[in-house]
């Protein structure tokens, strides 16, 4: 479907990821270049955590924690996108394999007032 690294300009999934990221982290979409660091974008850890949660919910994936870098998992936008694409690929493979596929229609644990 798409190469593992998620080519930034051509993979339609990247646009979807960046749109979510831009909205949740309140960053101008045009600033979200592969080499841009999360830090220089001024995205604090709270906003990033919220963005990751939103990506997991909307895309119905689980983004694994990089334990050795917990709290500072993603240095750049490119790293984050790559990580999300990998999670999407994994979810896709699981669904294709059947059996263990995660059900699609599950409520995310929303807190009242938590999203718009």
């Amino acid at each position, binding site marked *: 479907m798409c190469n593992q690294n998620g080519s930034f300009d051509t993979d339609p999934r990247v646009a979807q990821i960046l749109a979510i990221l831009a909205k949740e982290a*309140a960053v101008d979409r045009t600033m979200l270049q592969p080499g841009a660091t999360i830090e220089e974008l001024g995205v604090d850890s*709270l906003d990033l*955590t*919220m963005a*990751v*949660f939103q990506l*997991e*919910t909307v895309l119905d994936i*689980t983004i694994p924690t990089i334990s050795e870098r917990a709290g500072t998992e993603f240095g750049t936008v490119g790293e984050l996108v790559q990580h999300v694409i990998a999670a999407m690929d994994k979810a896709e493979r699981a669904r294709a394999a059947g059996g263990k596929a*995660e059900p699609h229609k*599950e*409520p*995310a*644990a*929303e*807190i*009242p*007032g*938590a*999203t*718009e």
Partner: protein
Amino acid sequence: MTGGRRVAITGIGAITALGHDLASLWAGVSHGVSGIRPIANIPTERLIVTHAAEVAGFDPAAHFETRRLPMLDRTSQLALVAAREAMAAITVDRMEPSRAGVVLGAAIGQETFDSSYKALYGENAKRLHPMTVPRIMPNAPASHVSMEFGLRGPCFSTASACASATHAIGLAFHMIRAGMMDMAVTGGSDASIVVGFMKAWDALRVLSPDVCRPFSRDRTGLVIGEGAAILVLEEWRHARARGATIHAELTGFGMSADAGELTAPNASGAARAMRAALDDAGMAPKEVDYVNAHGTGTRLNDKTEVDALGQVFGGHLDRMPVSSTKSMVGHCLNAGGAVELAVTALALHHGILPPTIGFRERDPECLVDCVPNEARNEPIRVAMSNSFAFGGLNAVLLLRRAA
């Protein structure tokens, strides 16, 4: 050893079942209005008791930005709304921020707990919201207050169940008196009317099915309330120097533990806390003009509290009114002591004693003048506010009319 430092109450804010500000709380309690109603904010099919004193018509979006809201459990929302009212007349940037602190009663984010675990266990949710932990943490209200007003001194929360806010206010008072800070935002908030917690209260068999009638022979138990009351305490000269309105003076704080039973009240433990407060203030029992009781409306609490009052005040109790605000605003748990201290301060200020409503018949086991059903004009000079918590933890505050 107090170094002569006195402590003034210079700001008060409240949000309760009687309304969203202090004025509506006072209007309600001074007219004997009940905030206890059928529960409207949560489903009640699985509850035995379906009455509570809920904060009605509260729209969080009207008070907080969309991006901030996910960080705030209802408990923190109520605390912030009350804190904004209390701080309205205070300019923090005119003081040293590290000399101003926050001490609130600890209150976990019950709404977040309840909705998260319902989603996880009941609806098989795959993930919980990332703000679940910071919304639930019992220091969240205190942290949000410190952040909103830029208060950089001591900030923490006290956990003693239904005495939490009274312990918080007492500690803030002592810390200012001891010179550890010059100003403190203190009090408590509570928003525990959620299905899981109300179901847990059902199991304790102490809830009244409808009305809270403290000291009345036909009393049927307590009614859970929610809300927040926040007080600004300030070193006396500091308050005077900036021309602040002084609502009342805090003069004494006493604490004790029953070291007895987990949930049953204990007269000698309660009496020791009252005596400790009097000693702290250097006052004699006969100087106290009014007591705002813990007065939950359970058979055992009210009888035990009157026993304890008798031990401390002796014959003076025959002439001293003792009323329970819980008959009107319910038992606001972690916030209860703060709501009641706010009412006690206004009682001193206005010279009006708030009544105990729902009172129908004198109980030979608790014979006090509970200011039955109607407020009374009575200029008082010194008042006491009692809080006695599960776990046998007692906290008592003494207030004097500002002079």
